[in-house]
């Protein structure tokens, strides 16, 4: 095990990741402060508070032992799957699609929780799968079913973005679990054939439209292409140093849609410029690089898959969101981790982070709760 030169007491927490992350969250809070027109309410304060609360939760998660994770993997997966079904049922009865369960004190989006859950359950599955079967159908089909079930339920909500995220997390685990490479290559090949067909048959109109508009946002600048166009204007007009804190016109004059959630990066880039953008990218690189290192250092299959999967899930958020705001991907409702205002997204990402921190602690052989 790679011993750090930092004393044990201090390096108990992964400060090399946490400090930049706190910087990122602070920047996020600052951007939200500006997006609210120079006010802590309603975004910035709750954003910072949520981060603090969920950080405590993440630290708590990181204290859990490997066995706890192993034990709860299937029950958690099952429970969340049940919630997904419940959401569908309520939606069907109530008429119209629904993604949230109203718990009274908060609204819960089970599909979000499914992103870490799928990673957890697959890591558990491949740990228990006899090694020899990895390359056989028994290494593929159960895992495929585990991914497909929630993905289908999320897809019919309909929420293409989250369904893709669930699949992405699952497939990364399968890839890292050592399934034969040619499976992925042929699956990729098949996908290229199926995707166009699916595009014209399975997708909802508005989803198809989003993809079409992504191909040519200027074709419909006041309609669906509006989001992408305005986001690019915000980022592009910021220049190298940005327009200065609180001076963003795109966000303040409401040209930028969803300036505090999905398009928060554009809001930030308008005011902080390329430097702010590079800072955000650097912090994400640090966090994700740290996550991947933790995964590679993990001693056993379960924890390495778990850490890598959680990292991949977070990476997927970052990648899709940033590509979307920069006009490289169609508009899908995926927020930017640690910057976008939104409780469920923060919760999911902190669960991922907490899990990676747990693996990190296991790597160092630290004690665990229970």
């Amino acid at each position, binding site marked *: 095990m790679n011993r750090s030169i930092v004393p044990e007491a201090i390096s108990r927490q992964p400060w090399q990741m946490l400090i930049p992350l706190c910087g990122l969250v602070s920047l996020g809070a600052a951007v939200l402060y500006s997006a609210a027109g120079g006010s802590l309410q309603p975004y910035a304060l709750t954003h910072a508070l949520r981060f603090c609360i969920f950080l405590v939760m993440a630290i708590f998660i990181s204290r859990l032992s490997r066995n706890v994770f192993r034990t709860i993997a299937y029950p958690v997966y099952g429970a969340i799957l049940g919630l997904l079904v419940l959401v569908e049922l309520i939606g069907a009865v109530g008429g119209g699609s629904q993604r949230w369960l109203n718990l009274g004190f908060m609204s819960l989006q089970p599909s979000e929780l499914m992103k870490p859950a799928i990673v957890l359950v697959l890591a558990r599955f491949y740990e228990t799968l006899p*090694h*020899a*079967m*990895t*390359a*056989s159908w028994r290494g593929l089909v159960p895992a495929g079913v585990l991914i497909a079930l929630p993905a289908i339920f999320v897809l019919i909500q309909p929420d293409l973005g989250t369904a893709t995220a669930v699949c992405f997390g699952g497939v*990364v685990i399968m*890839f*890292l*679990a*050592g399934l*034969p490479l040619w499976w992925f290559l042929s699956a990729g090949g098949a996908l290229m054939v199926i995707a166009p067909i699916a595009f014209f048959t399975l997708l909802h109109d508005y989803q198809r439209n989003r993809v079409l508009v992504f191909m040519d946002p200027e074709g419909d600048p006041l309609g669906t292409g509006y989001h992408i166009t*305005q986001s*690019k*204007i*915000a*980022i*592009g*007009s*910021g*220049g*190298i140093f940005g327009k200065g804190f609180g001076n963003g*016109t*795109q966000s303040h*004059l*409401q*040209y930028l849609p969803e300036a505090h959630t999905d398009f928060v990066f554009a809001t930030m*880039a*308008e005011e902080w*410029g*390329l430097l702010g*953008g*590079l800072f955000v*990218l650097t912090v*994400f*690189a640090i966090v*994700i*690089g740290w996550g*991947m290192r933790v*995964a*590679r250092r993990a001693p056993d*299959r379960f924890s*390495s*898959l778990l850490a*890598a999967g959680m990292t*991949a899930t977070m*990476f997927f958020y970052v*990648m899709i969101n*940033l*590509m979307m705001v*920069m006009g*490289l991907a169609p508009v899908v409702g995926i927020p930017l981790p640690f910057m976008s205002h939104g409780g469920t997204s923060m919760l999911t990402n902190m669960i991922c982070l907490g899990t990676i921190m747990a693996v990190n602690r296991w790597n160092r052989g630290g004690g665990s709760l229970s």
Partner: protein
Amino acid sequence: MKINFRRFLRAPHVTTGTLRNSFDRRAVVIGGIQGGIGCLLAARMTYLSVFENEKYKLQAESNRVNLSLIPPRRGWILDRNGQPLASNRADFRVDIIPERMTEGDRTLAELGKLLSLTPIAMQDLQDKLEKARGFAAVEVASGLDWERFAAVSVRLPDLPGVVTQRGYSRFYPTGPAVGHLIGYVGAASAEEYEKDRDPVLITPGYKVGKDALEKFYEKDLRGKPGARRVEVTASGRIVRDLDTREDVPGKTIKLTIDAGIQDYAARRIGPESAAVVVMDCQTGDLLAMCSMPCFDPNSFSDGIGRLEWKMLSDDDHVPLRNKVLRGLYPPGSTVKPMVALSFLEAGLDPNESVICNGGLRVGNRVFHCWQHRGHGSVNMAKGIYQSCDVYFYHFAQRIGMDPIAAMAHRLGLGHDFPLPVAGQSYGTVPDPAWKLRKYGKEWQTFDTVNATIGQGYFLVNPLQQAVQASRLATGRIIMPRLIHGQENTMQASLGIPADHIAYIRQAMSDVANGPGSAPHARLPFPDIKLAGKTGTAQVVGLNVGNGKGGLWKHRDHGHFICFAPADNPRYACSVVVEHGGGSGAAYPIARDVLTYVFDKQRGMDILTELETGWGGTPEQRLDARYKAYSAQYGVGAPAVPSDEESRKLQAADGADEPAQPITEAQSPAPEPDPNAAASAAPQASPSPVASPGSAPQ
């Protein structure tokens, strides 16, 4: 550890070690992909914010800053003394830009409530919206009080597409009196915008001239729009003003019109359908040019509502036609001084007489004098002041039509004049060549006979008659002018000997002041004499009506041309009263207008008394009529035809004006017995038996 390649297709040998190994390798791959995507994002970010920075900066600016044009204040139109005939008044207004409206019906309902619009106004608004093209603003209301304006202004965020403005709107202080003279303004139509791509045309609140002077001088009156740069949100709410460039008001146009005379004449016409022209017969300056009834250009400028349209198109007094320029009438006996002048020119001794027995046989027909009892011995002066037809029947046959027609042209009949107006109908001065050209028929003696008493093919408009009066008065080529500030050079002489002019002038003076046909046309001043000539023009044959009573449409037109003072003419005036029942309807108007010209107070006293009998000023009567209409029809009036259609309608109205029958050469010969005439005239066209120069009643 080693993979058995021979068994590869069945099942590879998998151990913890191989899996760990593959995990490590694949983790590196994934890390590499992640790093690659990170670099891609960084590159994209750099590209957007560094290399495309200029482009996006510009786009952000054009998002943020909204350049709105401030409609320029329209140039004023002044009368000769600087009194405004058309001005601008500060105004609170509300417009809709249709393409920015999201929930049209809800917005309209809300506006209707806030502005307390009547159902009729709501209906008109709907009509306007249906016709509107997306780019142009549609006026909802103008001239609002502050409370209603503020009520809409504060709710603007909930009313997308609605624009409130403090601006200026056109104001015509004397309303209907100047409607035909000045015209009116209105929002530019799509056609107008296509012809003239000036962006100010589609600025909310900007109006273009739609008729008459407003249209003719559109370019001069327009001015230059100001501009306001404002910061706006995506939903169009104005955050703050950035900078403002003031508008440049349009040029002021000063007319020769005297606002007082114009207004007086319009009011004096009263309930009649009539035209009055007053000219300075020394310079040609038009002092008044009014045609009544008229629309109110103030309410026309807000857009023509259904009810207004119905009211105007129902009116048989054709308020949409400018009778001064587009009304054509057989001039009746008003041509007699002109014909007499041509006789003098042809060498006729004015003292040569003819015995009038009440009629004259021409060929196989008898042409009557209006005075069936006859005038006895008639010389030229008596022929004019008594308006004896037989005198003219007799000598016209001797002189022939061509000298008469030539004189008519010299005095301005059959011509249009270089005036800044939308159109003039110049009518007909018939002569043998013209008849041959037009109808392919030979000129007949009875055509001459008809023409000498201003019937037959003769058609003139009231402006020409005023010009004729001026030229008779001065013997000079007086050209009517409307724009003030031109040089007052002495006009060239017509080349008519002064003694001829003096003779005619004296005869015309005797019409009112001597033993003439209109003694009541005398001015109420001991020292100012009016010289004039009456005229009664038949509209239908005696078989249809006697011209004095019966159906309004069948009554004779009344004419009067005059100038004053008779000995040193200064003002000329012509009056036409459509279907007035004879000249008795026309000369009192001319007399009172000239009375006003010389003594305003005296004129006003007469008018005030008359107006109490008529139910108020033209504006008050128009208002009352509108109220009656809205009570009767409410929202049931049919939609207003589009701009182009209504224009066509107006033009057609003017074109088919000739109330004058085109008499065929074969038209029934007038019989000595009026009863026989009636039975012998089956055609609708009235017989050429004029009953001209009606006597005062």
